[in-house]
């Protein structure tokens, strides 16, 4: 005969069920961000293909190795100081107490009771790597790999995450003072990286042969199909990126934006896809060019990302279409000014990101924020867009100017003529393209003199 349950035993059973429920909720959250991070890796697979394809064949591998190394220097440096910057600087330039985010903290490693820090750190590290990739494409075929890596560490583990602390942290001053709204990182990732890139391009200069008598020439990608596949992979990766921009809360709160406002993945799904479509249409109509058509997918998503949770899908489609056209004209303007952006990164990410932030102030002004924070406003968004431009441009320009003065920024002219692959990478992307496979290779065997050879 079973015992009659007491109030105490029922309460204990309820507590046990509650603990199990909360543990599973935490695990679900971990799983969500784990897969967002994994999908974000496709952004880098995409950038790898895109930049290699966009280069001439003599620089294809240099573009690739640069991209791979960017990823692997941003990850450890984001561990060493990037995560701390995010947690320490929401108030501006004076650090707050954030010792738990320092790399020698017990929080920064396997912890049986912490199901959040690792996956959030990973997602943010991959956001940082995306900023590095945005810079990477624009500077192909003439930047020194070493200079690029220094710049990409500063951008990917320093500059953008300072913007993230200001505009993407619950205590960030852009939010608390101006009601800043940028849920999909149009400003904190794309605008900052785009304008950092512009600063670098001004000091780096154009590729040899890009401008003849002041007239911009076409330097064709060696593999346009590879760039198109790469761009489509970036779009796939964006679903991980945008998933990482939404907060999976425990308890009965459900999904919120990074600002604590209610939203859900359905809102993101509507506007991500409508933005993608509109951007492609806009760029296609403006250029009829395959490279720009596919880039339009990025323009479209970035143009609506700041207000991804708020826009009517029809409005998102219209915004993205218009921005697809506008980004092409901005890229033309840059070329007319003698700036050689090899992949249009400043237009696609910088210009579009800034306008996207401002448009939230146009179309969603008055939308309240939670916890008594200021509502979204046009002036708040406009001011914040200006902050993003300055925060990206000034360090990019200053640091690249320093590297230029030290003669460390650009490869020598002879190297540029021969191709960086032949001079520095010592490998050929298509070694059998011009000679029979049985001929002796003129590519050095890098394993020939190692100790293990023949062991």
């Amino acid at each position: 005969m079973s015992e009659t349950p007491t109030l105490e035993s029922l309460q204990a059973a309820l507590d046990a069920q509650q603990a199990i429920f909360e543990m599973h909720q935490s695990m679900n959250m971990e799983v969500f961000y784990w897969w967002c991070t994994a999908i974000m890796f496709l952004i880098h697979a995409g950038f790898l293909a895109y930049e290699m394809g966009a280069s001439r064949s003599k620089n294809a591998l240099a573009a690739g190795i640069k991209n791979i190394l960017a990823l692997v220097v941003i990850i450890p440096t984001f561990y060493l100081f990037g995560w701390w910057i995010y947690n320490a600087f929401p108030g501006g330039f004076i650090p707050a107490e954030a010792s738990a985010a320092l790399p020698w903290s017990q929080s920064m490693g396997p912890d049986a009771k912490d199901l959040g820090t690792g996956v959030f750190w990973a997602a943010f590290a991959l956001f940082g790597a995306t900023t590095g990739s945005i810079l990477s494409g624009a500077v192909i075929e003439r930047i020194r790999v070493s200079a690029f890596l220094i710049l990409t560490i500063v951008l990917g583990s320093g500059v953008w995450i300072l913007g993230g602390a200001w505009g993407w942290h619950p205590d960030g001053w852009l939010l608390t003072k101006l009601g800043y709204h940028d849920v999909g990182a149009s400003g904190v990732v794309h605008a900052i990286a785009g304008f950092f890139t512009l600063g670098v391009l001004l000091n780096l200069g154009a590729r040899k042969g890009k401008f003849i008598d002041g007239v911009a020439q076409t330097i064709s990608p060696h593999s346009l199909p590879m760039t198109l596949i790469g761009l489509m992979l970036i779009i796939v990766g964006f679903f991980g990126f945008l998933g990482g921009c939404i907060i999976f809360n425990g308890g009965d709160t459900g999904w919120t934006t990074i600002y604590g406002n209610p939203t859900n993945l359905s809102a993101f799904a509507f506007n991500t896809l409508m933005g993608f479509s509109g951007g492609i249409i806009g760029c296609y109509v403006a250029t009829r060019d395959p490279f720009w058509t596919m880039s339009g997918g990025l323009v479209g998503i970035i143009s609506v990302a700041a207000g991804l949770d708020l826009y009517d899908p029809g409005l998102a489609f219209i915004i993205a279409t218009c921005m697809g056209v506008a980004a092409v004209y901005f890229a033309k303007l840059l070329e007319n000014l003698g700036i050689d952006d090899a992949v249009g990164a400043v237009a696609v990410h910088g210009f579009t990101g800034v306008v996207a932030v401002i448009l939230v102030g146009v179309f969603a002004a008055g939308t309240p924020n939670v916890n008594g924070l200021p509502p979204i406003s046009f002036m708040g968004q406009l001011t914040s867009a200006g902050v993003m431009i300055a925060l990206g441009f000034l360090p990019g320009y200053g640091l690249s100017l320093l590297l230029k003065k030290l003669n460390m920024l650009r490869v020598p002219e002879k190297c540029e003529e021969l191709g960086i692959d032949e001079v520095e990478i010592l490998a050929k992307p298509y070694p059998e393209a011009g000679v029979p496979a049985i001929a002796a290779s003129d590519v050095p065997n890098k394993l020939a003199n190692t100790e293990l050879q023949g062991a």
Partner: protein
Amino acid sequence: MGTSITTWENVSAYFTFADNPMALGLFVAGATVIVVGLIRSIIKHENEAFKQHK
């Protein structure tokens, strides 16, 4: 040798050397040296490669 725990009961941070700030500091220094060393080695390699193709 490096474990920071003796039991799994009520365990929190359990990674190697989690209870040894000196060791964690050394690992941070080591990681920094690897990143800086990578860039330094690339600069050296580039300078040599560019010299060979003057």
